[in-house]
């Protein structure tokens, strides 16, 4: 019997959505491995979190009240200790900024192989089979991992959330953390600067990516936005270059938007971008690369040069 241990992700009083998605991923894997699904929740109001994680398919929830918020040193100690107790064959962690901050260390400490950013999971005999994307999502690979037990980080949005409530067993654990030995401490949180425009409001967004090439060329897109009444948003490189302020960034570390129309110009469609715009009602993508993953999340596409398309659109609406 091979059990699965899933780690939920709390932040500032809420469980992040990926926590419930991991319950689905974990249940599927537990079924394939004929094991139980265990869920760990560490830090914050863990009893309240445990109630919320009490969903169909979960066998046991383990709560560890360790600190108010995430601290990777505490997490590594706590998770390693739970794994020693429960001996799960599979440890599943969100592929998030915090998941990346502790899962590889847990794997290293426990001497388990780690595979990150899984979009599908299976077991074949004793071998773990993980689907994951490469080349910024242009290719999906099937990776077989030998030498379990395993640590896996799971992509947000890859599994539907577990919804139906149930009554799993809830067990509280005390784990002692050596306070002297902590190499890191969290001082606080800040929201990245909010600016002039709220890109979550408008129903027409024109999003521009690295394909725009130069800051000067942004004027073209501004013209189109002015002519159509749209608002300009961007992918990360445009913001990294300082061409547009951070509050225009769409994606995992930027804003999540749900406009009626999202016109993506010269954006490849990396997962961290798609995470912020896949809820748009209608997506139109213009990209000169026919294999750009943005076309996998678009309703309409032009395989072509944005510098041919945008000036003509400006003319059309001007």
């Amino acid at each position: 019997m091979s059990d699965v241990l899933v780690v939920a992700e709390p932040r500032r009083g809420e469980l992040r959505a990926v926590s419930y998605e991991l319950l689905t991923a974990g249940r599927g894997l537990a079924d394939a491995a004929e094991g139980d699904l265990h869920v760990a929740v560490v830090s914050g109001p863990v009893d309240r979190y445990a109630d919320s994680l009490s969903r169909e398919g979960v066998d046991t929830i383990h709560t560890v009240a360790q600190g108010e918020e995430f601290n990777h040193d505490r997490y590594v100690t706590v998770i390693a200790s739970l794994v020693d107790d429960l001996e799960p064959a599979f440890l599943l962690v969100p592929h998030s900024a915090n998941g990346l901050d502790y899962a590889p260390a847990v794997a290293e400490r426990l001497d388990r192989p780690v595979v990150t950013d899984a979009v599908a999971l299976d077991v074949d005999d004793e071998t773990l089979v993980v689907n994951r994307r490469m080349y910024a999502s242009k290719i999906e690979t099937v990776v077989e991992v030998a030498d379990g037990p395993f640590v896996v980080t799971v992509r947000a949005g890859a599994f539907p959330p577990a919804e139906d409530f149930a009554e799993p067993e809830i067990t509280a654990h005390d784990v002692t953390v050596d306070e002297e030995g902590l190499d890191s401490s969290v001082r606080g949180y800040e929201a990245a600067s909010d600016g002039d425009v709220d890109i979550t409001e408008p129903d027409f967004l024109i999003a521009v990516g690295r394909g725009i090439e130069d800051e000067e060329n942004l004027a073209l897109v501004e013209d189109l936005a002015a002519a159509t009444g749209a608002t300009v948003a961007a992918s990360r490189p445009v913001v990294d270059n300082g061409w547009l302020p951070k509050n225009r960034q769409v994606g995992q570390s930027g804003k999540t938007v749900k406009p009626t129309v999202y016109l993506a110009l010269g954006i490849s469609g990396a997962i961290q971008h798609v995470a912020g715009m896949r809820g748009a009602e209608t997506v139109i993508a213009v990209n000169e690369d026919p294999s750009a993953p943005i076309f996998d999340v678009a309703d309409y596409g032009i395989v072509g040069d944005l510098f041919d398309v945008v000036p003509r659109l400006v003319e059309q609406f001007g």
Partner: protein
Amino acid sequence: MKILVTVKEVTDLAADFQIADAEIDETYLEYELNEWDAYAIETGVQLVEAGIADEVIVATIGPERAEESVRMALAKGADRAIRVWDDALAEQDLLDVATKAEIFASVVEAEEPEVVLTGVQANDDGFGATGVALAERLDYGWAAVVNALELDADEGGAHVRRELEGGLEELSDVTLPAVFTIQTGINQPRYASLRGIREAEAKEIERKTLSDLGITKADAASALQITDLFEPVAEREVAYFDGDPDEQVEQVADVLADSGVVGE
């Protein structure tokens, strides 16, 4: 203070690639310095320029071809480089994190940098795990997805910002020695100047094999094997607008009008 930056030459796919027998032919692959690593190099070089660090060493795991990217790092201001490669690694299609951590750990143990910088992830395999695994192996402190780094040598620590989801940032303190995985946007990586490129030619690239580092083939065996690859299933069905640009633009205009987001 010494700074070690791990860098990777990554593969990119040509626009019109093809998959045959679960493989992509070499002709469709292009090579470049990993985007995230360029920011890590810049972070290191700026610390030297600010007088906080003395030297930036880059370390890579890769075949001879990877020296092009290493030269790029040297041209952008790194002082010297170490490249580790071995036939035992060339046979593997996906190096596992433990192997990479093992290799970099032995380089770090020889060089004893106080700060190790890596990119958050490599844009080909997107693993995002090497830096933190390395820190744990070395018993260094660490922080992942760092978009601001301030070293306080007197305190023996660093103040960092970690970028979380949805525009939220975490402020933390980390004791040195430490590994930081660097996020894009932390700075503006410089272009290599012609002079920098010329000077890089004269800088040293030290080449090492696994046995030079005391690592056995068995230690470097990967637990991971790629058994299939294909183009991912699309989430939405896309309708392409064909014709010349004028005709394509007409069709975009129709969609915009039908959706009610523009007048007419």
